[in-house]
């Protein structure tokens, strides 16, 4: 996972222990969540909302430990769309961390962002698209990008950590400077298949 191109299943097994709490996960943790955190902080993001997700586990830990950033634990993802809108009304830059399944929960709420041209930055970890063992993840995984596009959210796909940092930098400008609604889709191939 240091390279991010985890095409070998054995690499996934080594690096993708469930949750970030185990020492094994920490020692083998990839560098991109820290880079992503630094990029978002440097862009002035001071609010993060999330539904817990294994792919975002390290980023969540970094934000939760940061006294300069307000973290919101959500019961469902669409809450974060509304919170981000309120944050912008008050002059705060927000980011929403979610899994592809959570995109489905957000669709009507995303109209708030698109019709109002609220800056919106979604970082979506993908499920149901690469070495997915759980068929229940597949329908929403396949529908994530078309559904976002249909409601008016633009999407960037990231297949490597380098892609991801570029895409997030671009998305930050488009969202917070150009009032766009952007989702960066972090591929399951890069994160690694879920290990049970």
């Amino acid at each position, binding site marked *: 996972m240091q390279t991010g191109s985890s095409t070998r299943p054995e690499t996934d097994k080594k690096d993708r222990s469930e949750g970030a709490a185990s020492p094994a996960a920490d020692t083998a943790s990839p560098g991109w969540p820290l880079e992503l955190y630094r990029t978002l902080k440097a862009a002035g993001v001071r609010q993060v909302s999330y539904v817990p997700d294994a792919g975002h586990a390290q980023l969540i830990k970094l934000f939760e430990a940061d006294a300069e950033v307000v973290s919101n634990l*959500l019961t469902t993802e669409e809450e974060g*769309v509304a919170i981000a809108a*309120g*944050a912008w009304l008050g002059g705060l830059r927000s980011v929403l961390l979610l899994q592809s399944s959570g995109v489905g929960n957000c669709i009507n709420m995303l*109209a708030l962002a698109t019709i109002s041209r609220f800056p919106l930055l979604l970082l979506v970890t993908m499920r149901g698209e690469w070495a997915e063992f759980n068929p229940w993840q597949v329908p929403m995984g396949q529908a994530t990008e078309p559904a976002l596009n249909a409601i008016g959210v633009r999407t960037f796909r990231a297949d490597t950590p380098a892609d991801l940092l570029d895409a997030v930098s671009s998305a930050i400008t488009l969202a917070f*400077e150009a009032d766009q609604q952007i989702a960066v889709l972090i591929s399951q191939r890069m994160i690694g298949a879920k290990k049970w």
Partner: protein
Amino acid sequence: MAKQSHPALDRRAAVAALLRDRGDLLVVTGLGSPSYDVHAAGDTDANYYLWGAMGAAALVGLGLAQGRPDRTVLVITGDGEQLMGLGGLATIAVAKPKNLVIAVVDNGHFGETGMQESHTARGIDLAAVAAACGFVDTRRIEDMAGVEAARGALHRPADGPRLFLLKVKAENLPRSMPARDAVHLKNRFRAHLGLPVN
């Protein structure tokens, strides 16, 4: 379950009383009648009206309260709108904003869609839900004295989020409609806070 009662509050009078001498209060409204009630009480750039995004009002209020911890944010919404965002009460409770107050104008009905009964007419008590979540001040208000007391409390500091349930009559009043253009409403509110247009 909530006790059965025959609330006498007039929603327009109750909302107007809650907003009297509002000072630097920032107000977010839920779609439908609460937006009309707040508009009828007096339009100002410190009002942000929702015309859609059902379930969003309290959470827009949370985001705003976190962005402006120096100002009190009052969300005025309806029972149907808040019922759709029931999980949001848990999110707000754990976020513990000290400057967020949610006023639910509860007529027990979905007024915009033909006055069908809502869950609050069938026993769900939103103030009790908020209290169970950990809101520090929850009130069930059924008369104007209660509204006046809530107005006073609104302008005093608190240790966490508050929810005031205004039990009002179910009636369809003439609409008092704010502007609908969403970008206008956003920029107008931000300008009120001295924030620029991109």
